[in-house]
């Protein structure tokens, strides 16, 4: 049975959380693409695609009875999926393949080149928005899966990707603070727990998943605080804002952990 929370159904919440995460994702993309000087016009693509996703997600939630808004959300969500996958290809080609040394310097480019998995976060936002659009239209499944299992599957994949990317970048940072291990602890257990719920759903698995997702949500906020602190460990801190925003840790990346956990919690409690 689908429940509501504060007057909104869970799919509307998923759409709003995906929109909020997209805004944060684009903020980090702006810092990264600005740092590289927008050398390719393709670097503007995520802002167009993500911007449209945010706008139509909000419109679809505000006007739940307007079928055109739902259709438009599906369209821009597919666009975000495509932009994310193409972006992944670009990051891979220009960030590793085309660089001097190429794959022989793989670890170096994984750490210091374009973040390999970052564009796929936009694809995940598209996937979440697609599920949300289907749910808001009263449909019950996607790709042969129910919408709730589909959300668990997307969350498991998204969290796994975020853990991998954080693992590489924290390795680059030499795990200089014990808190840098945090993304590899509770969120990893949440991924395993999501898969457990997918394969063998049971009340015990659901309770374990809920607890782990709450802790993952908190981990995201701890990460936001630590990244903010990270800016201030650099010379000048945020007083030299632009330089340190470009050279410091990605400001909003930890919020993705919190956002994915929030979507998972909606699936646990409201669907």
């Amino acid at each position, binding site marked *: 049975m689908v429940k509501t*929370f*504060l007057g909104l159904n869970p799919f509307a919440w998923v759409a709003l959380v995906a929109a909020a995460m997209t805004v944060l994702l684009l903020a980090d993309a702006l810092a990264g693409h600005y740092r590289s000087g927008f050398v390719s016009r393709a670097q503007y693509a995520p802002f167009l695609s993500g911007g449209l996703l945010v706008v139509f997600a909000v419109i679809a939630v505000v006007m739940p009875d307007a079928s055109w808004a739902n259709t438009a959300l599906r369209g821009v969500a597919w666009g975000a999926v495509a932009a994310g996958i193409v972006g992944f290809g670009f990051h891979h080609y220009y960030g590793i393949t085309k660089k001097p040394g190429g794959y022989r310097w793989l670890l170096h480019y994984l750490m210091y080149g374009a973040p390999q998995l970052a564009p796929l976060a936009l694809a995940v936002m598209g996937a979440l928005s697609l599920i949300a659009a289907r749910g808001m239209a009263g449909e019950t499944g996607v790709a042969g899966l129910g919408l709730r299992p589909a959300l668990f599957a997307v969350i498991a994949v998204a969290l796994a990707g975020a853990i991998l990317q954080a693992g590489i970048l924290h390795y680059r940072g030499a795990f200089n603070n014990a808190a840098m291990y945090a993304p590899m602890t509770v969120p990893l257990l949440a991924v395993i727990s999501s898969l457990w719920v997918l394969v063998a759903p049971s009340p015990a698995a659901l309770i374990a998943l809920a607890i782990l997702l*709450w802790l993952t*949500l*908190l981990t*995201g*906020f*701890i990460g*936001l*605080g*630590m990244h*903010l*602190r990270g800016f*201030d*460990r650099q010379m000048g*801190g*945020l*007083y030299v*804002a632009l330089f340190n925003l470009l050279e410091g840790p990605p400001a909003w990346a930890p919020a993705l952990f*919190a956002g994915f956990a929030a979507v998972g919690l909606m699936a646990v409690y409201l669907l």
Partner: protein
Amino acid sequence: MNRLMESGGTVKSLRQALGLIKLGAPLHPILVHFTIALTSVSLAFDAISFFFSVASLSEAAWWTLAVSVIATMFTLATGVTSRLRLAVEEGEARSFLRAHMALGPVFFGLLIGVSVWRAVLWETERGVSWWYLSTMAVVALVMGAQGYLGGELVYRYGAEVERDYRELPVRSADSQAPALTPSSLPAQVLAGRRGGAE
């Protein structure tokens, strides 16, 4: 550092008062009071409602917490803008600042978590439990620690205010801190006071 001295006379009219309005005060230290007050009051209302069965206070506790979440978004945002304007070199104050910056989002995450919990209780018309009150107490403790760090930054290190406030006439930038008792006041201050009385 040369600070502006407070040199005007007594403010005697509304026009004079309006002329002194600068609106240059940093917003972050203002907004934190909303976060602290609303969150604390929500906990107090819920506790009173729980122990003395006052239903209306339970309702008020939810709404104060909901407003606290909204206010805290602005508190966080203005905190970042305050930091952008604050030149502070490496040292004790910067360490306080870093801890304050790290703890802020953690507190916000905890606040969102308890607010979601409180919203569910409100929607389902259930009262709060020992578990909820205990968790809120922990959130209030984190808020207290965060408030302490922020207070140190402003009142010990003068973050964002030290360069902006006007020096009162009895003090100069290199004077001693004011004494607490008249007998220990500096001689020139006592002379000034006697002169004023004559």
